[in-house]
Every structure is written in C-alpha cells, then in structure tokens.
C-alpha cells in the first residue's frame, strides 16, 4: 500500500521547473493546468456577469455602462462561461486528473494527444478571446445570423475559435473513450466502474460525435462568404433559421457535455459521504447513456417560436420530455442513496446536497419550457436565463466546486479549513438562489433577456438579483483564499481521508506518485462497498 512509500516524491515534486509542467505527459499535471485555466476564466466570466448585474440595478440604461458595452459583456460572459469554463471544467480538469486513477491505469491511452489537447485549448482560448475583443463581437454566445453577419467577419473567426476549442474536446473525448475501453484495471468490469467514469465516458462519446457539426457550420459560413452562395444570409437568398438548426444541433448535446460530468461527481459525493452503496447503480449508469443518445434529437426545442414548422415543434417537444425521464431517475436515486446512510455534513457533502436542491429546480423548470404553449410565453425571457443557470451553475458548477473539495486532499495531500468551507457554502447557496430564483418570476411576468434597460415595474427584483450576485462573489472569494492558504498551511492527509473505496483513494498516496500506482491494482470490490455497510442478515 501507498503508506509504505510516504516519503517518496509525488507527481507535484517529481520533476521541477516550468518546462516540466508545460511539456508534461502526466495526466495529473495536465489536469491541474486545465484547472488553473478554467478557474482564471471563471473569475473573468464572473466579473463580466457582475458588470451586467450592476448595470441592471436601475431600469434606465446607461448609469454604469453603455448599451454597446453591455452587449459585448453578455457576449463575453456567455461565451467564456460556456466554451472556456463549463465544457472543460469537469471532463478536462477533474476528469483528466481522475480518470486513469479511477481506472487503475498509469495514464490515459494517448498521453501525447492529451498534452496536445491542452495546448489546443490554450491556443484556442487565446484566439477566441482575441476575436471576441478585437472583433467587438456583440452577438451573444449564440452568434445568430443574420445579426452576426453585420459584424463583419467576426462570426467566422468566433466560430473558428469555438471550433479550435471543440477540437480540443474531440481529442480529449477520443482519448477518454479509448482509455475507458482499454485501460481498466483487471477485475474492473463495466459494472464495477465508478459512476464518475460512466459519466465521463458518456460525455466523451457526445464530444466526439457532436463537435464535428461545428466544423460543418464553420465550413458553410466560409463557403457563403467566399463563394457568395446564400446559405444563412437572407440577403443572398439563404435561410437564417438554418443557422439556428446547425448551431443547436451542436449546442444542445453540448448542454449535456456540460451537465453529465456533474452527475458523475454528484454520485461520488453522495455515496462516499453517506457511506452507502449508490442506489440504482445500473439505472444511473444507463440513464447517462440514454441522455447522451436522446440529447442529439432535441435541438429544436430552442426554436419553438423561430418559425420552424409546427410539426417539428411537436416532435421536439415530445423528445424533450423523453430526456426528462432519465434525469428524474437519477435525482430520485441520489436521494434514495441517503436512506439509512451515515451522513456527514462536510464541505463536499454540502455541495452534494446543494446540488440536489438547485439541480431539482433546474430540472423541474425545464418542464415549463418543454411544454409548447407555455414556452411560447417564456421563450427568450428571464425564465430561460434562470432555468439554464439553475442547470449549468446549480448543476455543473456546484458539482464542480464540490468535486474540487472532495478531491483536493488527493490532488495536493492537504485539507482546507472545514469551517470556512461551510461558511462559503452558505454564501453560495443563499447568493445563488437570491440571484436566480426571482429571475423565474421576472421571466414569467414577461421580462425579456439581453435587455440593457427595462420597464420600471421589474426594478425590485433586479436589485435582489444583483445583491445575490455580490454574495456569490464573496462566497467564491472565500473559497479561493482558503484553498490557496491550505496549499502551504493545510493539515497533511493520508491516502484516503474519506475512507472511500474507489482506486484513486485505496491504492495510491495523496498526492499520488508520478506513475499513479506501485504495480497494477486489481479490482475485487465494487467501488461503493463501504466498511460501514451492514451485511448481517440483509440479502440485497
């Protein structure tokens, strides 16, 4: 076991110098570098959002920023959060670190490819940010034509930026698919994989299949520009709604690229910290796969009022409800896992429980938007804004933050302040709900999204939202401080502080050694087989 080697160097100290990081083939270091990137962009995206919220304190536009600045800010906020933060957050940052460890492998299947995808991500994000800023892009992260055509060629370079980033996720996806198929430790059958691995696997499959559509869209945009063949631009006889079909054909599956990995983390958090075998393992694993498949055929629910045919609307509405069922199954299973457990309210678990609260609201409010007649009223209002923040932030980001807390001792071998962890979790819970809950009510009363000024009757609720936004800032600042502080001053921990049962905890030190394991681990047990489970009598 790892304890015997506790004085040995780990992956953080094995080699030194900047180069040893930038050109590392170690999946753990690549994961950490992604993590740093993602967190920096998260800070930037968050500050863009606060700029917007500050402008919205009063109904009149312009008391803080001009309409033009406002429009650029929400474009930056959306684009940065989607493409640079949420999509790479769990799979590329945590996933890279964890996947080989959880599988009992030495690294991912193609370590060089992994480094390449990190560099593609870095260059892609630089290019993307440069385009957004230099191209003065004010189209929103959706780049809808023909509006985006009027901003010159910016839409091509922005799509190109998104495509470079997409390339990075295709490469990561490919790598993960092969790794899961080929590199599992002896004894780890598909049914003994941790649910985090199932989630990363389903995500990787979507990444590989959906991202090429972005490439096709880009190609069509370029063909339209250079050969003057009208495809999306009505001035040349094209169809702007066709662009929306292409865009959402990628971007709806991308929604699940964003949320599925969050589901994976949630399964681990709930099981480990309630010391219970996850309830309905098969149902949770298979529902990830079901979601991955159905997610390809629901894109039209973003376009119920766009002028697509009524029949298409009806079909897409139906399929959208179909995707709700596996999501509901997961939620119920997580709650059921708590039943007769031994629940510890530490910081990771608080995020696990917070996720159930916020994500349930996100999921349940999706039902309003899937129902055709109700969506006609709510489409493109704050209701939609609230809904996707409850899913993307209340789901993925909350799970991501919980995951960082859960695996922090593994990544750095130290523990953070539990007390400050709880305090900041409270700030985030209150701040998040305050910011976004009343946006449902705003939307339901008809407040349109992407508005720089608005009718005075909505002011009180906007103020509430803005105050909530600042509470979130406080919460995240506290987290940043105590996590950084813990790197130097945190209490050292052993290999398995949570007494979890998956390989990254049971078979390697904290932090892990450079090659992950001494010898090949062999799996005999189920990853959720905790010692506290009472085996006497029960025959389940």
């Amino acid at each position, binding site marked *: 076991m790892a304890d015997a080697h506790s004085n040995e160097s780990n992956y953080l100290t094995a080699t030194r110098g900047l180069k040893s990081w930038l050109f590392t083939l170690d999946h753990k270091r690549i994961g950490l570098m992604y993590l740093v990137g993602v967190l920096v962009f998260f800070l930037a995206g968050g500050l863009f959002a606060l700029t917007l919220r500050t402008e919205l304190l009063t109904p009149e536009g312009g008391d803080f920023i001009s309409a033009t600045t406002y429009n650029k800010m929400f474009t930056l906020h959306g684009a940065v959060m989607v493409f640079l933060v949420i999509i790479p957050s769990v799979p590329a940052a945590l996933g890279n670190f964890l996947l080989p460890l959880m599988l009992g492998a030495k690294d991912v299947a193609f370590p060089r490819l992994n480094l390449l995808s990190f560099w593609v991500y870095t260059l892609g994000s630089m290019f993307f940010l440069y385009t957004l800023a230099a191209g003065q892009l004010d189209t929103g992260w959706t780049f809808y034509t023909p509006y985006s055509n009027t901003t010159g060629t910016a839409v091509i370079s922005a799509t190109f930026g998104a495509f470079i980033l997409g390339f990075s996720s295709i490469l990561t996806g490919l790598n993960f698919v092969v790794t899961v198929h080929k590199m599992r430790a002896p004894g780890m059958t598909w049914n003994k994989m941790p649910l985090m691995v199932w989630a990363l696997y389903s995500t990787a499959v979507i990444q590989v299949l959906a991202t090429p559509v972005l490439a096709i869209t880009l190609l069509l945009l370029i063909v339209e520009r250079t050969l003057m063949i009208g495809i999306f631009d009505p001035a040349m006889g094209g169809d702007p709604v066709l662009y929306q079909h292409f865009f959402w054909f990628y971007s709806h599956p991308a929604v699940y690229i964003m949320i599925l990995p969050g589901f994976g983390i949630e399964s681990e958090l709930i099981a480990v910290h309630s010391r219970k075998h996850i309830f309905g393992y098969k149902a949770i694993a298979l529902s990830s796969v079901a979601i991955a498949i159905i997610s390809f055929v629901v894109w039209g629910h973003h376009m119920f009022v766009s002028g697509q045919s009524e029949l298409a609307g009806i079909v897409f509405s139906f399929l959208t*409800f179909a995707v709700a*069922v596996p999501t509901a199954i997961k939620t119920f299973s997580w709650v059921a896992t708590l*039943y007769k457990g*031994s*629940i510890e309210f530490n910081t990771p678990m608080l995020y696990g429980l917070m996720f159930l609260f916020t994500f349930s609201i996100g999921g349940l409010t999706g039902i309003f938007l899937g129902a055709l007649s*109700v969506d006609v009223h709510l489409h493109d209002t704050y209701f939609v804004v609230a809904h996707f923040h409850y899913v993307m932030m209340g789901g993925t980001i909350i799970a991501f933050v919980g995951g960082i807390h859960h695996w922090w001792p593994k990544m750095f071998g130290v523990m953070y302040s539990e007390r400050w962890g709880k305090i900041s979790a409270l700030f985030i819970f209150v701040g998040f709900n305050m910011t976004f809950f*009343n946006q449902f009510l705003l939307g339901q009363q008809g407040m349109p999204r*992407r508005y720089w000024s608005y009718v005075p009757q909505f002011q009180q609720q906007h103020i509430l939202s803005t105050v909530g936004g600042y509470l979130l800032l406080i919460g995240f600042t506290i987290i940043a401080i105590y996590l950084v502080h813990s790197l130097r001053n945190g209490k050292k921990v052993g290999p398995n502080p949570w007494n979890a049962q998956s390989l990254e905890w049971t078979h390697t030190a904290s932090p892990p050694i450079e090659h992950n394991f001494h010898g090949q681990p062999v799996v005999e047990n189920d990853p959720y087989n905790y010692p506290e489970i*009472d085996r006497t009598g029960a025959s389940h």
Partner: protein
Amino acid sequence: MATFMAPENAEAKQAVADAATEVAAEVTKAPLPPVETAHPWAMPTAASTFAEDTDALYYFITALDTVFFVIIMGAMGYFMWKYRRRSKDQKTSSITHSGIVEFLWSAIPTVLLLVIFVWGECDFVKQSVPPADALDVRVTGQKWYWTVEYPKYPGVSLSSSTEEPALTLMVPKDKPVRLTMTSTDVIHSFYVPAFRVKRDVVPGRYTQIWFQATRVGEFNLFCTEYCGDLHSQMTGVVKVLEPDNFERALIAAGILEKEDGESLAAYGERVYRRRGCAACHSVEGKDGIGPAWNGLYGRTESLTDGTTVKADDEYIKNSIYEPNSQIVAGYSPQMPSYQGLLDEEQVTAVIEYIKTLK
C-alpha cells in the same frame, strides 16, 4: 361593423376625422398609463383568449413541480436529519436497488410528462391556425422599431419609438387578429406578454401569429430576439379598444396628417417621431446610425464617392426617397427608402423641421 371609408372620399373622411377628434386626443397625446402589474408570483395580466389556456397549464405545471420538489426535498431533509452521522462506525443499510421503487419513479413521471406534452401541444396547435375572418395586420420589424399597417385601412400606419412608449398596435377587443410579420434587417421577435404570444420576425420570410384580445387596455410589446444596441428599447404599446371605438381611434391615430393651424415644421416633427426617423437620427447632435439633423440644412455634405453636395431641399428629398444614391461619408447604407411611405407634403414638412434645427 361599419365599413371603412376610403380616404379619397373627402366628405366621409372629414366625418370620420371629426368623430375621432376626442379619441385622437386621448390616444395620441395623453401620456400612456403604467402597465397594470400583477403580483410577482402570478402570471401577468391576461388579455387574450390564449392567456387562459396557457396560464392553466402554467399553474398545473407549477403545482406538479411543487409537489415533486416538496417530495424530493422532504425526503432529502428527513434523511439528512434521521441518518446524520452520530458515531464514527454507524452502520448503514446494504440496500443497492429496488425494482418496484425504480419502476414507479420512472413510470409516474413518464405519464405525467405525457399529459403535459399533449396539453401544451393542443394549445400550441390552436395558436397556429388563425380563423378566416381575422383582421389582417402587417408588422415589420427593423432596427429598432416596429411599423404596423392595416391592409384594410390604406394609409393607416403606426410605429414604435425608441424614445418613449409609443402606440404601436391597436386592435379591437373580442375579434381575432392575424399578424403577418417580416423583418427588413435582422431577426426580431414580437412578444406581447399579456397575450402570451411570441413569434420571431425573420428577414426574407413571413411568420404569422394570431390572437383575440379579451380586455380593453394598454399592454407592453417587447422585442425578444437580441437585435443589437437598442434591442431593449425596441418596445411599444399595444392598445385594445372596444370594437365600436376601434375604427375611429385607429384612423385618428394611424393617419398622419397636418392638423389645422399646425405649422409645417411642427407637422414635420411629428413625422420624424411617428415614422421612425428618430431611431437613427438625433436632432441634438448625438451621432446615431445616421447623421444628426441639427445644422444639416444648408451645410455642404461629403459623400462616400468623394463628391460634395449642398444639403438643400432637393438633396434632403432625395435622401429620403432614394437614400442609397448618395451616402454621407462615414455612414453605411442602412436607411430604408421612404418612397411611397411619405407623401410630398410630409417630406416638405420634414425639410421645414430640419431647417429649424440649429
């Protein structure tokens, strides 16, 4: 309902205009009352036949969601309290799944979701088929105002303004109205929360919606598809009138005519506000999509083709009827032609108005 008198019939026109004077004053001049606000937890004022249907489903989903949320959170809260860790080696259950429970919590939501799907779908289909006797209205979206025309009432036209809430659409109560919509530039979206209707307004094609208003009053109209800088000012006021008043009020508000005793310049200012010029041209020097109008008259303009021209009556008239034939240097050809939309008298009035702007 009385048939509309063609405007050529001077006598009839006079009669209509007279009858409409008080209504006109009320409709066009009075500051618009604040829109009725409902409780933040409730849907906004319901003013169309669709509103009742949509709200019924909305409240049904709200109730159902609440029940499910309470069940999920109730169970979670109860477990959190009941099974909190009391001792380090507290035993936990070995349960891993349960066929019957898992079947139930898959099947029950499936059935409920199907009900919601069918309900929403039926209402949606109803909203897609306008009745044959609906009043036809043409709506055009452009950066950043709406223009509304009534084929049945030639010459009548309303438009929104980015400056203030302006009367943009007038409809009779209890009569179906069909909107045929298109855009001249980018995608906009026509949304009247009180009617629960919304539809994208797309360049290069026509989209349609219909509704039947059930309540007299004034309601917000919003653009809900992001369309650029003044997206949030692309708003207007929808006014629902008693069918008896509708025609008179519409003509009074929608026909733009020089009033007796009104100066040409004052009339020109009204044209400026009511025909959307204000969306792109300021009159106090602020640069917009187009050049500001103050100091324009008599100035020498440089054009993009390198030539210069004196801004006289002829030039301004040409700028309005054929805006793309002479483009002012530093601007792009974004101004639509007003050929056929502004008559000679209105153009003259605009010129007189511009002359007064220093």
